[in-house]
């Protein structure tokens, strides 16, 4: 049997004596989908950052496809070695690069083939075909979000982490958001972890629904 795409074992993290993650364990198989809900400030973002290798844990470990990626406070696999992509809450676009460059830079730096063709294709699929030459600062909120998704998808990740990608949208835009989420899911076979505080969003994702409260991850 293949090892799971992602395995967390007894992951613990505190900030200044405040325990944010308390022995969190989880196994995610290839292509599997999870949503994590929870009030703000409970450590959802922190959990995703530890999975991505952007932050170390205090104890416990992160395994990716059978390889140890983080062991306690030691980061064994650097963020760029993990095959993980993350869509950040504030998107993390590169402001000096235009829409197409944002995606092409990523694909090129990762050494993936057909840089321009694939980048354009993904952008068109997410409805950004008309904005290829625009800088992120000149995009609307919804368009910027599409770009962040497009960039993550173009990296062909094994594991996609989405940190409240639709949190700041008004109710009208939320439906467009769900549509976008479905489009994204259509285009990838990656395992997905979606952090959200919207139960409907979690339902749309499908898969297992989890809740993080007081550092403990539980099924709903």
């Amino acid at each position, binding site marked *: 049997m293949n090892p799971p795409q992602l395995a967390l074992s007894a992951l613990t993290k505190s900030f200044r004596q405040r325990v944010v993650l308390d022995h969190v364990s989880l196994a995610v198989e290839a292509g599997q989908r999870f949503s994590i809900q929870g009030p703000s400030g409970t450590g959802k973002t922190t959990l995703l950052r530890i999975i991505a290798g952007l932050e170390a844990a205090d104890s416990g470990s992160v395994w990716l496809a059978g390889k140890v990626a983080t062991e306690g406070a030691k980061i064994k696999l650097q*963020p760029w070695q993990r095959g993980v992509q993350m869509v950040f809450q*504030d998107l993390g*676009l590169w402001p000096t690069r235009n829409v197409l460059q944002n995606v092409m830079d990523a694909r090129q730096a990762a050494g993936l083939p057909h840089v321009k063709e694939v980048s354009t294709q993904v952008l068109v699929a997410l409805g950004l075909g008309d904005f290829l030459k625009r800088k992120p600062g000149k995009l609307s909120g919804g368009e910027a979000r599409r770009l962040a998704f497009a960039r993550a998808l173009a990296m062909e990740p094994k594991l996609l982490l989405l940190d409240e990608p639709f949190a700041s949208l008004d109710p009208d835009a939320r439906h467009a958001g769900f549509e976008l989420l479905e489009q994204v899911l259509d285009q990838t076979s990656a395992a997905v972890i979606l952090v959200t505080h919207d139960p409907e969003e979690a339902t749309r994702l499908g898969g297992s629904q989890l809740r993080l409260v007081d550092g403990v991850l539980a099924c709903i």
Partner: protein
Amino acid sequence: MIAVFHGRSPRPWWSLAVGLTLLAAWLPLLPILEPLLRFDRLAHMLDARTAALLWRSTWISGLAALLAIVLGWPYALLCTRFQFPGAGLFRLLMPLPILLPPLMVAQAWFGLTGMTGPLATVFTFGVCYAPLPALLAARSLHKQAASSFESALLIAPRLAFWSLLRISFLPAMIGAGFAFLFAAADFAVPDYFATVGDLFHVYAAEIFGHSRNFDFTAGATASLPLVLLGVVILLGNAILLKRQLGYEKNSGRYATAISAGRLTLPILLFMLTIVTVLLLAPLGRVIFETGNQGPLSERTWLEVSQQAFREGIDRGRGDLMRTLGFSGLAGLLCLFLAPLWAHMLLHCKNWLRLPLVVLVSLPLLVPSVALGFGSILMFNRPWLDQFYSSSLLPALLIAGRFLPIAVFLLLDAMSRVPDSREENAALAGCSYLQRLFRYRLGTQHASLWLAAGLVVAFGVRELDFAILLPAANASAAVRYYNALHFSRDNFVAAYGLILILLLFLPVMLHGWWQSLRSSDQ
């Protein structure tokens, strides 16, 4: 009177600020700008000789700006975004080289290497103005959104490094633009290297030359090309800045420094090299020169040095106190004017902002010598005799010239404070001054004091117009300049060091204060 202080409208205060600035900064500019109205004279100005001088000034300043970027940008990048031992100290030292009087740096490097000529001038300006690209780049590196850096880190470290370069490129260019301008307007350094080595002329020295035959009108007129150059650079920089601010919108966390890891030692060596070139080598040389002596002398280095310092304090005290007097007055003026201006720029209509920026910056963009000529032409009149010979005139000129630095510092600080704080105060019926000083600036007092401190420091460092203006003649920088030209080396060095300590003080205090505050949080 009381009613004004309690008034809720900003208008009377803004008018007062504009009025005072008019007096302090813009009147002396009129004689410089006057030839713009006379095309016949304008055509005369560009003969072959002038063109050759301007060309030399341009390439010297261009290379200096390039060197300033090469030294300043990597320095800022490493000490703001990498963790290695001493990074905080390097950050603290970053602004200091710009406070060193360029003439002192020139003299120190001549002492160390014997370099002369145009390339020595390039080197001196590059070293002195490296903090400009460095400080501006550091500011934008601090403000990079964490997610922007980290999303690159999820792909390749190379890409993350590129994101650092890309977010700080325009600020570094803006700093280099100003470095270019200040280098082009400075006559004292090329003049010094031309005296100790082979003769060469630059355009700024040509302007200063008019003072030798007291032709102030010609001097003011001749400054016009440099003023126009200044306006062009300012406008270019305004465009770059607008674009950069578009890149800096950030709704999340700011990026933090990354551990240098295996690169710690190379980075440390690199930083030490740059600090040595920018700061330690010239300072070391000046310290050495306080006790340097001829081969026949029987006294020790320490004895000579001590005597030089005694002499420096004894003879220089009067000038120093006078300089501190009018620079301090200028600082106080800016303490009041700069917040008003910054606030006005923050709230004014969009179309008005750029013209206001040009107006407030103009006194800094003109060569200081030209400001001297302009104020002689404007204020040397019998009925203004009292004012012309008082310390008030240099105080006003310093305040006007360095006001833009204070204004932009405060503008940056104020734009970090959420508008809602001030708006709440307005709803509660607070007076305008309370709104500005208590609610808008309440958490930014360190910036306010730094702004005033910098005006004082630059006032003490100011040489060019002080040479021309009788009221500023007996100043510390002029005494230094004269002593240098009479080769009183020990005295010059000791006096220079005393000055430097004074200049470093406000900046070091601010840095120390900031680091205390950030360790509190």
